[in-house]
């Protein structure tokens, strides 16, 4: 009886891990959409309102969910403090505090920070062009992941089940 219970636990743990991994993949797609939303809002803040970056980040933080809200709020706060640090440094330091809370990979953050890192340089038209370019890249990445989603879901769920079954066999 104990063996059966243990085997079932191991099996469901494997299945659960596969499911979790599959959900992470889906969440990554949603997080990429949020990054695109942030960039779209930034384009609006710059092109229409000509708001400064601290003000823009503060306003946009009200439109997005955690942990991105906290990220934008902390960046806005650091910018307003005028600590003398560069903008890029502030972006990267604050990113470290929220990275683990998202499903984004390092290359997603790199692309996002690279897009934002050019902000504040040259005129508004240039800012908007750079942001639009970054947003397009993120959109392409999201599209690619979405295209692969059904297959990835199957793979991770199957791996989870098979992995669980394999462990049960090994342990028994």
């Amino acid at each position, binding site marked *: 009886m104990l063996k059966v219970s243990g085997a079932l636990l191991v099996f469901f743990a494997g299945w659960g891990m596969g499911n979790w991994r599959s959900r992470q993949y889906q969440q990554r797609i949603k997080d990429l959409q949020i990054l695109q939303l942030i960039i779209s809002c930034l384009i609006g803040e710059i092109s229409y309102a*000509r*708001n*400064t970056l601290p003000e*823009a980040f503060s306003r946009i933080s009200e439109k997005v969910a955690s942990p991105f809200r906290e990220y934008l709020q902390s960046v806005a706060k650091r910018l*307003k403090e005028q600590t*003398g640090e560069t903008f890029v440094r502030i972006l990267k330091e604050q990113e470290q505090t929220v990275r683990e809370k998202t499903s984004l990979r390092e290359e997603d953050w790199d692309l996002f920070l690279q897009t934002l890192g050019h902000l*504040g340089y040259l*005129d*508004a038209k*240039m800012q908007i062009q750079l942001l639009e370019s970054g947003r397009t890249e993120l959109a392409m990445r999201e599209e690619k992941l979405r295209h692969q989603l059904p297959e990835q879901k199957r793979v991770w769920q199957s791996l989870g089940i098979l992995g669980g079954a394999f462990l049960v066999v090994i342990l028994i």
Partner: protein
Amino acid sequence: MKREEVIRLFPERIRKILQQAYWNPQGLQEIRLRAGKPLILWQDGQEYFVAEQGFLTRHREQACIVSQEDIRRTMETVGTYSLYAYEEELKQGFLTIQGGHRVGVAGKAIMEEQKVKGLSQISCINIRFAHQITGCADMVIPYVTEDGKLCHTLIISPPGCGKTTLLRDLVRQISDGWETFPGNTVGVVDERSEIGGSYQGIPQNDVGIRTDVLDCCSKAEGMVMLLRSMAPQVIAVDEIGNYEDIRAIEMTLNSGCKLLATVHGSSIDEIQKKPLLERLIKEHVFERYIILQKETAGKIGKVREIYDERGTCLYQRQRSVC
């Protein structure tokens, strides 16, 4: 103004130097940065070099030399990493920061169709610190008000004599009112952010509780906008002079608003020689003329004379005839 407010404007290297140096924030007038040149500070009408070790000196050899990187980082900080937001102001060669302080810039101008599109490669920064002098209009108030109403007033002054400072305090007092004078709704067209010192649209100087400020707007358009939307009792503008300004002034006068304006000059006779203003003076549009004169270098100007619309002297410095 606090020391911290000033120090925060600069990147790390210059911050450390200013933190160590002894300077008085209340007497601080300007800090100038030029690429490859000494860091200069103006305080109480005196120029000082700032040494690398963090002290003020008159000896140029001891001065800290500003690098192009210092200039770039300073612009990044004063512009809150958002120089694009100050594009229109930068076309005029300055931007206004929190506190109403003005950051003047020079460098390579980008021209398009013979107009300045912007500035690239900024190599010189002049931060002028705003110090509002509350009460400087006290002595002119009795002369510019009559029967509880403001007279159309023109302040005539050479550059650097404090006409904007005087105008600002006049606006404040007229807006707030006092026991015998009800506060008036004042509309200010602040073309160069000198009167209100607005930062993100909010005046940093005290311009009174009933004052509406249109920041960074051309005088002619601004006056019309205020008349149409803000129902002002008084309109205040700085440095009138061109044809569009005069037309907008006529519209203001026809609407029943009182006018407070300033103009460059040293006397009514000199102003009368300007074709555009000649007609306004001959038609007795302005009811009061306040003439300022220059004092010693670094000190604000003084009121030299006040005249009414007929040229009768109401006040002369060191002798009041009213």
